[in-house]
């Protein structure tokens, strides 16, 4: 057992309102520089949809992540030798057009245009070339709220599993359904970006698992961009360096949650430490598709188990870190209650960001203008939530996203979430019989106490309950050997300057 600590995350999709505040918070802090205009380290996309960059989930196109070949785990992108051979031209690199060409507007023309018969206009100006753009063909969230769905939503690769009939139904007005998927770097346990980088510039921090990309070691070989199946490393075309989400480590190190977490309007985000067994990584990434979720859950260890605690201490994990893991909301969602699932475990990078799948689009299907409650009796569920089997958004779609196609895993989550709803409704509105509640609890394989706890952490959590930031304290610890004011002086004067001043 090789116990390590990992700062991990849960996004509760039922709570996401698609406001993009998170994306803006991130952009304002990290990606408002030249060459990063098109980057959204945090982005929120509409599902079904093709996302950002377009069709990022299609690994036949982008070759991200890992695949099992003859029982061996291989990077989908390249062998090591093949990678060195493709270094002059990476055949699977997304280009700027797969994202969008960033632009601004020529506002000055509104003031400076000579008098004429027509109103002056502010033309779109490319932020790459500085030249006017004739037409804007894509932008961030181009397909937000199903905009242009015949082109976008219909090409969502997760729909591949559905029958033609099911796909057609999704386009009927009465059945149209969507939800939001906020995405950041998953800070994976078996990251494809790290493995694909020939320069060894990307690394995982041992103490907290944050995946960082060294700007000094990056040589623009750009393999990480293909290697990450989530397309969460980005190429800064101006600096010639790749960049990625840093989980706001400077904020974490001073006790604050990342900016996207902090600013989240829907309060959908949770952050906390997970203890995991690093010895299991390779085995876990190699199990058959339908076992992936279970294997990953298995790798996460119980922070209350004395054996785990002893092993953690042996590995130099501090008491404070262990306490932090015990208080972690992520541990509860992922391991204790098992209602948060990784996004696309089939990419086999073992992402450490988990999602509570959304209920709303799944349930509440209508028929002839009324809620369709047929068949509920058969399932033994009271008539408020329609049947899971007849879900508006087919469960297979959810399974394709969150459990590598294992429908059982997703159903288990939904049964438990339904139990929470019915239990709370019985308590507050009192329009359910106790028998209904008991049936729902048993279907959800849960108990009254657990359901109450899920409800509290979902609906009424405090700031401190949502974000249990571990005591990384590097920012403070540095004061032990460096004068903080010296340290401060070096910040903010540009990278080159700082390096020239560095003592070595």
């Amino acid at each position, binding site marked *: 057992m090789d116990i390590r600590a990992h700062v991990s995350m849960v996004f509760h999709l039922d709570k996401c309102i698609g406001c993009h505040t998170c994306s803006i918070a991130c952009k304002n802090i990290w990606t408002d520089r030249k060459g990063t205009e098109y980057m959204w380290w945090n982005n929120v996309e509409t599902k079904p949809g093709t996302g950002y960059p377009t069709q990022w989930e299609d690994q036949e196109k982008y070759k991200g992540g890992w695949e099992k070949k003859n029982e061996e785990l291989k*990077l989908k992108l390249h062998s*090591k*030798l093949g*990678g*060195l051979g493709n*270094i*002059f*031209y*990476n055949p699977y*690199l997304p*280009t*700027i057009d797969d994202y969008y060409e960033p632009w601004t507007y020529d506002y000055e023309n509104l003031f400076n245009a000579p008098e004429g018969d027509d109103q002056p206009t502010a033309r779109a100006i490319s932020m*790459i*070339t*500085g*030249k006017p753009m004739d037409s804007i063909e894509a932008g961030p969230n181009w397909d937000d709220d199903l905009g242009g769905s015949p082109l976008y939503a219909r090409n969502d690769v997760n729909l591949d599993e559905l029958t033609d009939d099911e796909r057609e139904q999704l386009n009927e007005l009465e059945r149209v359904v969507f939800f939001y998927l906020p995405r950041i770097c998953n800070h994976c346990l*078996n*990251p494809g970006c*790290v*493995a694909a980088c*020939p*320069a*060894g510039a*990307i*690394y*995982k*921090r*041992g*103490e907290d698992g944050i995946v960082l990309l060294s*700007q*000094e*070691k*990056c*040589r*623009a*070989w*750009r393999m990480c*961009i293909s290697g990450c199946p989530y397309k969460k490393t980005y*190429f800064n*075309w*101006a*600096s*010639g*360096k790749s960049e990625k989400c840093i989980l706001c480590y400077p904020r974490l190190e001073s006790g604050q949650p990342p900016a996207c977490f902090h600013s989240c309007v829907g309060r959908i985000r949770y952050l906390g430490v997970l203890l995991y067994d690093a010895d299991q990584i390779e085995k876990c990434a190699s199990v058959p598709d339908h076992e992936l979720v279970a294997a990953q859950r298995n790798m996460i260890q119980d922070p209350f188990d004395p054996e785990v605690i002893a092993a953690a201490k042996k*590995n*130099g994990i501090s008491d404070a870190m262990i306490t932090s893991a015990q208080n972690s909301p992520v541990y509860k969602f992922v391991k204790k209650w098992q209602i948060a699932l990784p996004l696309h475990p089939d990419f086999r990078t073992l992402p450490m960001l988990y999602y509570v799948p959304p209920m709303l689009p799944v349930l509440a299907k209508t028929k002839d203008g009324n809620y369709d409650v047929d068949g509920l009796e058969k399932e033994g569920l009271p008539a408020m939530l329609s049947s899971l089997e007849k879900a508006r958004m087919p469960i297979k779609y959810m399974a394709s996203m969150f459990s590598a196609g294992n429908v059982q895993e997703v159903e288990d989550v939904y049964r438990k979430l339904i139990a929470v709803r019915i239990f709370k409704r019985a308590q507050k509105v009192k329009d359910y019989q106790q028998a209904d509640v008991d049936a729902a609890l048993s279907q959800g394989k849960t108990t009254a106490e657990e359901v109450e706890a899920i409800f509290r952490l979902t609906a009424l959590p405090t700031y401190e309950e949502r974000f249990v930031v571990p005591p990384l304290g*590097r920012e403070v610890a540095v004061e032990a050997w460096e004068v903080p004011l010296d340290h401060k002086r070096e910040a903010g004067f540009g*990278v*080159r300057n700082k*390096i*020239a001043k560095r003592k*070595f």
Partner: protein
Amino acid sequence: MFDNALFIGFPYAAVTISIAVTIYRFFFDPYSVSSQSSQFLENRKLFFGSVPWHYGLITILLGHLTALLFSRLWGLFTANQTRLYVLEITGLALALMATVGLVILFYRRMADARSQAVTSELDWILLVVLFLQVGLGFWVAYYYRWGSDWYLHTAVPWLVSLLKFQPDITYVTALPFWVKFHFLNGFTIAFLLPFTRLVHLLVYPLSYLWREHQVVIWNKARH
């Protein structure tokens, strides 16, 4: 005197500056070391330019280097006429390939607005110098045949004399103008190397072959 400056002074100066600046750059400004790839902005023309250019050029450069390092073996190899023919034709083909690739890259930088946005003055200078070099190489290979053989008795001893710090330029002074131009332009490239994106050839990531896939860095030493 002038020849001394060209074939002793210039090579030594170029290489010395080159090494000094390279060291400086790696230690004091590692951030600036990048291949500055522009594939992200323009993909198609790059394919037809970059692939033939790199593969053609690297093979030829390795040929030059092998002949320099293992001149005796190389001499034995070229002693046979058939082998010499094959070598010369391969060399010409590769030079052509590299030249065509570079022309496409040149065109790409000129015609494509996005590529232009990431092209610096130094990039243009580098492109011109590189183009001169492969063009001259091709020219020399074509008009002054059997270079793979006479190279051994002219440039190689001259370079070896430079390396041994006992410079002897008599090996090269009598050569035709274009050949000498090719030599000197070569040192110009060596000089430019640390100032331009060309540094990327010094950091070709061979160590990827033996590195573990995953990289974990610990802040504190682990026991």
